[in-house]
């Protein structure tokens, strides 16, 4: 299926008659990417489902004001990243978990059999990623899983390319150390 260009989506969205059609095209193009971007942060499918809907409701409400000072999909990624961080912080406050730690609920949901069907090594890798601070986790996920360029990640997070490179390399080293630690088993 040929991917629709962002410019076409924006042009159709600006016309009230074709707005619904444009939004449908946008959903087809980005809903899975955004879903996985959020899922890798919050882990739980049901929470991700809610957040995906919230993100696209915000996209619908604000797309008319999109100023084209960034790419459309980095703008959507930014909304999704912020929603994920807000959700995780809210969850930590509800559980009285310090903000610089991972909520135990998130870790427990990793092993829910209904939504995780990876191997032991993959589970260990996901547990290693969860040890990263949230912003670093976002950087790692966008770089490693989504294979986004540093410039695009910079548009999403508002962080300089140099800081992003440094953060990613530190994250990789942490994960390497975690994976090599034979004391950590599942």
């Amino acid at each position, binding site marked *: 299926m040929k991917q629709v260009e962002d410019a076409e989506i924006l042009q159709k969205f600006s016309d009230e008659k074709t707005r619904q059609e444009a939004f449908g095209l946008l959903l087809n193009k980005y809903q899975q990417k955004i879903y996985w971007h959020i*899922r*890798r942060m919050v882990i739980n499918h049901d929470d991700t489902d809610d957040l*995906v*809907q919230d993100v696209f409701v915000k996209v619908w*409400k604000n797309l008319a004001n999109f100023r084209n000072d960034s790419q459309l999909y980095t703008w959507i990624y930014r909304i999704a990243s912020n929603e994920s961080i807000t959700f995780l912080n809210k969850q930590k406050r509800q559980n009285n978990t310090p903000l610089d730690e991972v909520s135990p609920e998130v870790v427990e949901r990793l092993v829910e059999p*209904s939504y*995780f069907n990876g191997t032991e090594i*993959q589970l260990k*890798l996901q547990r290693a990623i969860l040890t990263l601070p949230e912003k670093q986790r976002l950087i790692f996920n966008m770089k490693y899983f989504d294979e986004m360029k540093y410039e695009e990640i910079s548009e999403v997070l508002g962080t300089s390319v140099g800081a992003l490179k440094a953060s990613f390399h530190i994250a990789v080293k942490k994960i*390497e150390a975690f994976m090599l630690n034979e004391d950590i088993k599942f």
Partner: protein
Amino acid sequence: MDNNLEHNDWKDEAPHFSRLPKVNPFAVPDQYFEGLSDKICAAVFVDELKAKAGFPESEVPAGYFEQLPDEINAKITLDALQLPKQPGFTVPDGYFDRINATILEKVSQTTTPEVKVTKLWPSKLTRYAAAACLALITSFAVYLNQDKLFKPTEQVSNTAALNEDPMLWDIDEELIMEQMESGSSGITTNTSATSAELEDYIIDHYSQYEIASNL
């Protein structure tokens, strides 16, 4: 080439990790993505309905959410302590059955009688009638005592008194006037005279024949 370098430059730093296959271990329910667009469109529709209907944000007291965790923790702690529900105090049998009657009895004994309040002026008409009566009485009193209140001048009254005195009818008027004028120079005229003075006056001014003819 540059992209490959950017995406692969980390592999030297993490050789073990870099050898792991890039697999997505997370599962999603069947047909989830097929229905996701409709679900999102429905969420957008509901959100617009809320905005048009003007559903207000739920109002909560100020600081509610900041205090909520502490309140919840306090309740959890109380539950965990499993404190006994009963306070441990005892009351006599049938106490609460009797207490109502006891209180009502005491209340009826100490009830103070209602003080009857009588208005001084039951109505405006009464007030105005009283004022009219007072004015009437005052004016009647003034009318009755007007002589005392409105006394004529002393000179006029003195002249009237002189005219009415029969002893002075035979005395020359000019002489009377001279006497009066000599007494009106600021000194009050003393019209009262002793008997001896009168007798001397008559003897000096009248003959014996005149005195005898008038006796």
